[in-house]
């Protein structure tokens, strides 16, 4: 028996993937594609934040200062923002500012935008990161557990009622969940502080409020994926080996749900990053989200530009991290996209 002749029966996709992997490894291809996308996203973000002021119908400075502001002040602010220069100069200035960390000055408070952001960024980062950790660490056991319950033949009622609870949590907006959390745990039981930021007591409810929706969503994904994986023949193979349940679940099932979980998880994490905007407002947390909301209300364009830019960069970073994890974890060629 020398070499095995190539089969004609497997799907053409398979042979195609094999042919591609001969030239360039799928991971390299994936890395190249994603780097290209990252650069393009970066460009779009920078262009969008630059042009947002110019897209405002009418005079943005007049809109920011209100109809009663004296004409001299309007002219001063316009010069401050550089809006009186040709647009190419403005863009060069903007890029130069970005490179030197100068994001301009707030129209509203006259503070340096970069300074405000750097003082508020850590809060938002901690909130988003712990929210994601809670969502992921909660969703994996919950999803896998409900899948096992659903497949065991026992406890069908239990698994369907858990799914129902997930469904309701998913359908409930995060600020509403947070309001409910405040109502129960703060107003009702007096366990945690209803607002503010600083210590453990103030952090619990915002983090839970932020994580609950994504967790339920992710748990549903994990559950569906897990049920699919449990039906796979390779799980029967593993079962035929009579491996301990621990190995069956952690070694044979988990790696096969990780790719889809992480792909969805990455989108959720991006959403969760933006979700801090709402959560910070509910709990009166002095983070970037709160800053953004008041800046949008006050039409404080330099501040809006700066905060939106930082949020967008955070989201790009999240996508990059998820991609890197996917490349490390997924040995297959399945990391292809259309």
């Amino acid at each position, binding site marked *: *028996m020398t070499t*095995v*002749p*190539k*089969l004609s*029966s497997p799907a053409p996709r398979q042979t195609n*993937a*094999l042919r591609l992997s001969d030239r360039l490894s799928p991971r390299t291809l994936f890395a190249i594609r994603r780097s290209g996308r990252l650069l*393009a*996203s970066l460009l*779009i973000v920078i262009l*969008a934040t630059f042009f*947002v002021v110019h897209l*405002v*119908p009418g005079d943005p400075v007049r809109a920011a200062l209100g109809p009663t502001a004296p004409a001299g002040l309007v002219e001063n602010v316009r010069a401050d923002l550089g809006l009186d220069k040709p647009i190419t100069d403005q863009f060069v200035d903007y890029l130069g500012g970005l490179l030197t960390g100068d994001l301009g000055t707030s129209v509203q408070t006259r503070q340096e935008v970069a300074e405000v952001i750097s003082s508020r960024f850590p809060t938002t980062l901690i909130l988003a990161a712990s929210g994601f950790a809670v969502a992921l660490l909660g969703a994996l056991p919950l999803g896998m557990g409900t899948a096992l319950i*659903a497949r*065991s*033949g026992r406890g*069908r009622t239990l*698994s369907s009622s858990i799914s129902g609870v997930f*469904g*309701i949590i998913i359908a*409930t*907006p995060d*600020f*509403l969940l947070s*309001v*409910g959390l405040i109502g129960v745990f703060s107003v009702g039981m007096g366990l945690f502080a209803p607002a503010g930021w600083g210590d453990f007591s103030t952090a619990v409810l915002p983090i839970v409020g932020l994580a609950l929706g994504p967790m339920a969503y992710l748990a549903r994904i994990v559950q*569906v994926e897990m049920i699919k994986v449990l*039906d*796979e*023949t*390779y799980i*029967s*193979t*593993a*079962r*035929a*080996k009579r*491996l*301990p349940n621990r*190995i069956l679940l952690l*070694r*044979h099932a988990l*790696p*096969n749900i990780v790719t889809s979980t992480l792909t969805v998880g990455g989108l959720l994490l991006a*959403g969760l990053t*933006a979700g801090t*905007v*709402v959560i910070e407002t509910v709990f009166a947390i002095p983070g970037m989200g709160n800053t953004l*909301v008041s800046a949008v209300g006050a*039409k404080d*364009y330099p501040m809006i530009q700066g905060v*939106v830019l930082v949020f*967008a960069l955070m*989201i*790009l970073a999240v*996508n990059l991290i998820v991609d890197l994890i996917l490349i490390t974890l997924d*040995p297959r060629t399945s990391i292809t996209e*259309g």
Partner: protein
Amino acid sequence: MKKFASPIGLAAVVGLLLLIAVAIVGPIVWGDAATSRNVAERWGAASPAHPFGTDDLGRDILARVLVASRLSLLLTAGATAIGLTGGLIIGLAASIMPSRLRRAVVWVMDILLAFPWLLLVLFFTVIWGATATGAMLAIGLSGIPNLTRLVYNLASSVSGTDYVRAARVVGVGPVGILTRHVLPNIASPLLVQAAAAASVTLLSFAGLSFLGLGVQAPAYDWGRQINEGIGQIYSNPMGAIGPGLAIVFAGLIFTLISEALADQPGQGIGRLVAASRAAVLPTDGRSGESGSESTVRLNKSPDATATEPAEAAPLAEVKGLHVAFPDGGGGVVERVHGIDFSVSQGETVGIVGESGSGKSLTALALAGLLVPPAAVAARRRAFDGIDLSSELTQSDRRRLGTELGVVFQDPLTSLNPALTIGRQLTEVPETHLKMSRRAARERAVDGLEAVGIHSAVHRMGDYPHQFSGGMRQRAMIGMALTAEPKLIIADEPTTALDVTVQKQVLGVLRAAKESTNTAVVLISHDIALVAGFCDRIVVMKDGQIVEELSAGRIREDAQHPYTRGLIACLPDMRSDRSRPLPVIDEVVRPAERHGPDQFADGGSGEGDPSEHVATGRDEVRSLL
């Protein structure tokens, strides 16, 4: 539409009608209550007169929630319409663009998709200002990338079909293709998505108004009401929770509509959950009465009877085996009707039967691998002294893990795609034989070499997708050889393979059998293949054993019409090639056939992974 006849569909329709009714009559009926001020009663807590309490001007919050439904739903509908229209136009246009332009559009949409809606909405809100119309535009536009991607994917899959190609050949232009072929075919999934999008839009609006960036006073929607109510959450929690309930209710209705419209999502699980627990199965008795009709008892061939119970206890056996599945409607469908089957030490037995005959289920039951929703009952089910019906002890599991090997039909799916070949071959030696990592590795390399995989040491780090189908199947057999197999159950091990590769795999299996004196149960629909490989053949049909034969004497001894039909289909050197091959009569008890289609409809097809490949009854394999 009959889709709405289900409980979910009914709930969705009733809920939607209720929402629309409230949105229409709300401002007329409760308009006065919602605007009449009563400062004396301001910030009132929930009471019978005001179930949700009153706001800062003493207005009834419940009435305001009901009145606000019109604006909330109108804005939701508007934004959904914007997103849907934009998505349709861009997605459809992209699908007929030249390929480079098309890729560029998809690429940009994918980049936009990476950004969460809230950020996009805030961006657009900055441009149009914090007004209701601005919010509607913002939310509508930020929904476009997602819907564009969906429309594009759907449209591309339709344009790739043969009938669209045919239309193109006939000369139908791109617009004609879109309107006549693509749109009607993507309408249904698009509706599902539109309902789901409406639910997301509703939440987006609530969020934006809650942030104070959506609807502005004196107008109000549900989100704005929560914003107003949250300040008083200590004195009147219902002020914020009341409008919140309205949002959740409307959101659930939209989700239900989407579910009801959908053909697939969640349906499998839903059905499985709905199916009641498998009923208690008949164990004794029934096998006799139901089997009497078609079981021809049985061959009197001396070879075959010699291996029957007269000798010592068989290596593995099942007695009175029944296997059933929930049928999706609360009942059960029995697929194996009380059969007896056994294998002796070192014996090679073939089980032959068509798809749905229960042969694979019998084998899986023999291996103790059937899991819920499959329900198994048997008078006796044992492997080498281990009772498979009872709870297994640690040492039972160890013995089963090492002494009983299983090879499944499709080698593409029976190896774990996420683990290296080496990892999958070392785990039995490591777990059950307590070998060191190194010794286990050597054992695994031996196993691969025994099945003819070259430079096995270097292939250990490969993943299954780097192996060809035949190699994977041989690796599966090698996996069994890493332990000390007494029985290998091979469930159609060659059906998914090319004919030349089939030979290799069977050769490997035969070599494994001879070198280790393991018993083999070979399952196949191919009686010629089985006759060439086995000592004894069991023919199954419709969940029953219809005949048992000695392999060498199938042509002489076969009595059951089905077996004779199978044999008649085998061409040999004397066959007249000018005449068509015979076809097996399909007259056998149609009422009791539990075909695979019928079964898959029950929503529990996953219980029988090996039966899904359609194997034509008239298919002839004469090559082995």
